[in-house]
């Protein structure tokens, strides 16, 4: 064997070893003996407020989301806004929300569904894809969290996670102030902590706690539940022809008479 061939063979072996190490680390992180739960796959929200109408396999679905424990300075305005939205809806003139403009929920709203979501576990990242609006969030594993003023505000924020026993604990900061769940105001200091675990082999719970020293009196905690969808592949969702719009009064309207003009 020539020297060049030896070098080539060594390179192949080294490559294979590197590949094996990577694969071992992967299996240890995802499904090995000391293993964390395998939550990879498709999931559909169940319980109160879910599109599936509470058709869960688990009768122990979590209670509905409680009202936000807003500080007095914010509570009155929030209640008035919610009341105005209910009255407008009752009149058949609903106030436009983010979805009307095809804007996604961001965090934590995307965890409420409404469509199925897919979780992908890899060694360094847990990725969650929500079918509606093709929303994607990335949870960086075993990495230090950034300070609120070190991140640029986004819809999904900066999420870091770690497994604590059978629970994936995720911390998120850096959510845009315009991205509001249930219209609840928050500051740039908002922090979301999630405890994600299998309540049953095919039932996933995400306990979400929101803290915000500026707007909240105390932490706001609620839980979303999901059932496993073993044979479901997420569908595409592109806001291709949105005929709804928000008019000058802030009300939702529908454009009639055919598809949007060719672009």
């Amino acid at each position: 064997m020539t020297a060049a061939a030896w070098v080539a063979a060594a390179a192949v072996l080294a490559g294979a070893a590197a590949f094996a190490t990577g694969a071992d680390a992967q299996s240890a992180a995802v499904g090995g003996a000391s293993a964390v739960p395998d939550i990879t796959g498709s999931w559909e929200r169940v319980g109160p407020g879910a599109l599936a109408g509470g058709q869960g396999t688990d009768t122990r679905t979590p209670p509905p989301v409680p009202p936000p424990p807003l500080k007095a300075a914010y509570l009155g305005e929030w209640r008035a806004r919610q009341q105005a939205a209910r009255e407008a809806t009752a009149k058949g003139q609903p106030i436009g929300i983010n979805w009307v403009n095809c804007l996604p929920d961001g965090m934590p709203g995307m965890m409420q569904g409404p469509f199925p979501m897919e979780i992908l576990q890899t060694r360094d990242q847990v990725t969650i894809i929500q079918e509606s609006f093709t929303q994607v969030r990335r949870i960086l594993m075993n990495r230090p969290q950034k300070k609120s003023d070190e991140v640029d505000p986004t819809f999904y924020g900066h999420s870091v996670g770690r497994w604590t026993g059978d629970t994936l604990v995720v911390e998120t900061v850096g959510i845009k102030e315009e991205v509001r769940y249930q219209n609840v105001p928050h500051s740039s200091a908002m922090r979301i902590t999630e405890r994600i675990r299998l309540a049953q082999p095919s039932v996933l719970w995400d306990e979400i706690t929101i803290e915000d020293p500026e707007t909240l009196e105390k932490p706001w905690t609620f839980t979303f539940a999901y059932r496993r969808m073993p044979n479901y592949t997420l569908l595409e969702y592109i806001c291709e022809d949105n005929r709804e719009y928000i008019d000058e009064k802030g009300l939702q309207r529908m454009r009639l008479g055919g598809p949007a003009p060719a672009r």
Partner: protein
Amino acid sequence: MQRGRGLLRRIIVGVVFLTVGATAVIAHHSFAVFDHSQTVTVTGTVTRFQWTNPHGFLEMDYRAADGSTKHYTIELTSINMLSRAGWTSRSVKAGETVKAMVAPLLSGEPGGLLLEVTLGDGRKLVSPVPAANTFTRTPEKELR
């Protein structure tokens, strides 16, 4: 016992209604713009069955009382919901004569929300509208 069961059933129905009712907000937009108190029937020719998000559309021409042809725009749900309910992009075809049961727009504009459609071959397809039971079906009334 019978009475007890009746009460239990009413409670269950009530709970299901409340739960499903709560889902009305979980959609691309509010369905409050559509009339929940009556339905109209649109029989005519499909000019386009549009398989898009955030909603699918059924564009139809129908014959008005004065003999003219008028256009009506029917909104469907997200095509993802339609897919999960068994619909495909080929479920309705352009040129087909269909009969659509629609919750009309409250604004009076010529458009509405599809509740169900009867195809040319007589098959009936139900649209997977959230909280569909909150829409009152009234006796068939042809749009003219």
